[in-house]
């Protein structure tokens, strides 16, 4: 197998094909601290792309509750169990993954280590929703919450990986990564329904259509992206947790690019299960309130501790630039490639032509109305 460099694991690794990075890579940052699992993203995607016959069980976008939620059931623990030990070592300020990636742990007769879920595993997309990490204890007259109860929401779409396992597994070469934006697509004419991609994708974001009998997956709303517009799941996010754009490699990081700033400069946004070796391009700001940091290290890699520290600092008002990048989330539906703090109180986002797309205040003004409205002679309650 050819050797390729995966910056997320800090080393070279085996991959089925030679490295061929796209001219630019579409990606996103999801702030898990702000997600409320309203599933608006899920519905936006569902009504746009997967409301046809044979797609009933498909969720190209889903939001699951961690630690107990998963769709398809157990997708994460299943593949992590198969992968074996996943150790990281620190080399200077860089972490290097010492375990095997999916491509390195592949059995001799396969292309990629993976498994095929059963239809039962796809049957419960909401399993584990709002379940905490511990059971409630039964007191005499009431249920008691253990002190460190936590859970958080993990919105998931296809990661449009730099080294996609689905693409490597397809012996038909029916899956391709677009050189212009790195979006990974299944050629609906070439696919013959072997389901090698469904088996290989560790995130289980390639689906088998029961009626057309071939595979389908998230297309990252490429018709919109081609026109400089955000994908549907991102621009409908009412929690404003998402930032869509283009991600560079660390050596080419542009500090004015909001995604590069969050991922490479501030290092608050981390990939999901980087140890699998796919170099996923959807990044997550880890939840800061989770009691078990080891769980987060497993999900997002060893950079979690620093990311949480940096995020907390910003929330305490000690990092204006980071706050500025975060308030740009879902502030417009146009792709922004630059951002700038303006006058210390506002942040502006610019498209690739340098046109200002949006300008938002760093802190929303608060207006407190008097309890009694003299004009209307009535009492008012302030609501947030």
């Amino acid at each position: 197998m050819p050797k390729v460099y995966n910056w997320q694991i800090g080393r070279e690794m085996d991959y089925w094909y030679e490295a061929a990075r796209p001219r630019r890579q579409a990606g996103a940052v999801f702030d898990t601290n702000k997600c409320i699992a309203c599933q608006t993203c899920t519905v936006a995607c569902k009504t746009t792309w997967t409301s046809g016959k044979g797609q009933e069980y498909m969720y190209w976008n889903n939001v699951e509750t961690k630690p107990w939620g998963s769709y398809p059931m157990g997708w994460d623990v299943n593949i992590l169990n198969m992968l074996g030990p996943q150790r990281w070592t620190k080399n200077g300020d860089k972490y290097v993954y010492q375990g095997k990636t999916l491509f390195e742990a592949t059995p001799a007769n396969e292309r990629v280590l993976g498994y095929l879920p059963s239809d039962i595993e796809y049957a419960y997309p909401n399993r584990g929703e709002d379940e905490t990490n511990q059971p409630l204890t039964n007191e005499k007259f009431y249920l008691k919450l253990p002190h460190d109860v936590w859970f958080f929401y993990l919105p998931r779409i296809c990661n449009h990986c730099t080294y996609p396992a689905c693409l490597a597994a397809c012996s038909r070469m029916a899956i391709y990564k677009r050189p212009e934006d790195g979006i990974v697509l299944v050629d609906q004419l070439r696919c013959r329904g072997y389901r090698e991609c469904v088996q290989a994708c560790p995130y289980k974001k390639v689906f088998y259509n029961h009626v057309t009998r071939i595979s389908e997956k998230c297309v990252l709303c490429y018709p919109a992206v081609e026109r400089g517009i955000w994908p549907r799941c991102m621009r409908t996010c009412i929690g404003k947790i998402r930032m869509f754009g283009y991600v560079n490699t660390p050596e080419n990081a542009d500090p004015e690019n909001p995604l590069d700033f969050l991922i490479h400069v501030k290092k608050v946004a981390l990939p999901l299960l980087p140890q699998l070796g796919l170099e996923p391009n959807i990044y997550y700001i880890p939840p800061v309130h989770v009691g078990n940091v080891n769980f987060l290290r497993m999900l997002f890699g060893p950079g979690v501790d620093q990311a949480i520290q940096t995020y907390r600092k910003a929330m305490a008002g000690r990092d204006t630039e980071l706050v500025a990048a975060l308030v740009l989330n879902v502030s417009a539906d146009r792709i922004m490639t630059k951002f700038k703090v303006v006058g210390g109180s506002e942040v502006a986002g610019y498209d690739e032509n340098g046109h200002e797309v949006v300008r938002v205040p760093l802190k929303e003004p608060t207006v407190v109305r008097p309890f009694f409205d003299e004009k209307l002679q009535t009492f008012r309650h302030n609501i947030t």
Partner: protein
Amino acid sequence: MKTWRRRAMLRLASDKAKPLSKVDRFFLPAVAVSSLATALLAAFYKQFESVLKPAQATTRQQPIADVIAYRVPKAPISDPDSPVWGTIKEYRINLADQTITRPLKTTVPKQPITVKAVYDDEWIAFLLIFPSDKPSKQAIKVNEFRDACAVLLARHPAKPEVRFMGTADNPATILHWKADWQADVEEGFQDIEKAFPNVAADFYPPLKGAVADGKPPKTVDIMSGAVRWLAGLNAGNPISEPVKKSPVEKIVGKGPGTIATTPTQDAVGWGRWLDGHWRVVLAKKLRASDSNVGEISLEPGNVYAAAFTVWFGGERDRGGRKNPSMLQTLLLQ
């Protein structure tokens, strides 16, 4: 000393004393040298015979064929139970593993398959008989895989790699029978309700209003506007076509991963499962209808390369996970 031994020693002594004649002195070495030269020449010629005299095209050579297709008045192109098959010689062919391109299939079926072949003025038909304890006729659920079998045909002589979907200079014409396609033809399109009888849905765009009683419409009845939500069908993928006309797909391949459905789908066939065995007929027209994309034409009296492959759905076979035979020679007698 015994008498016989003493006599022998005396004779030997007398021979030694006798001088060699002129003939003996020159003739015997000459015979020895010429014999040696002849032997060396013969060995040399044998060594280079293959270079000096390359093998002729087998269409003229008429080698012993592994499988003979017999001429019959009318080939039973869609009937695996036709009495015609009872009169035709059967060939037992072993299936191998697939270890050329990953994903591999490393297990080998214990039993060989049975192959028979006939042709008439228009068609050539093959009967494949292979074991399958439980027929797998459905590929609706994500972990369901169908039984299937195929006949590969290519020009002879063929390099060994032609066995794997042909090569660029010797394309393979493949007849691919699929158990789920046959179920679609036989019983109507095997819709989602076949796998999930209790499926319910509220709405399918752009169908107007709610779906009556939560029961989705049949896929074949979905209006043309809704086909946009069946992306494979909308793209023209034959795998996604709900209205099947034949369980056999005609394909041309030029190497692993290159197979393509031919524009003219005129291959036919039928399978019957009984007592733990599939009996499957696969047939194509002798004269290629898609020669421009590499389909092979067959002529009586000629020899071709052929291979036979089985996919066992119960073993999750699909694509490269299959049991192909070695390359065989096929003679249209």
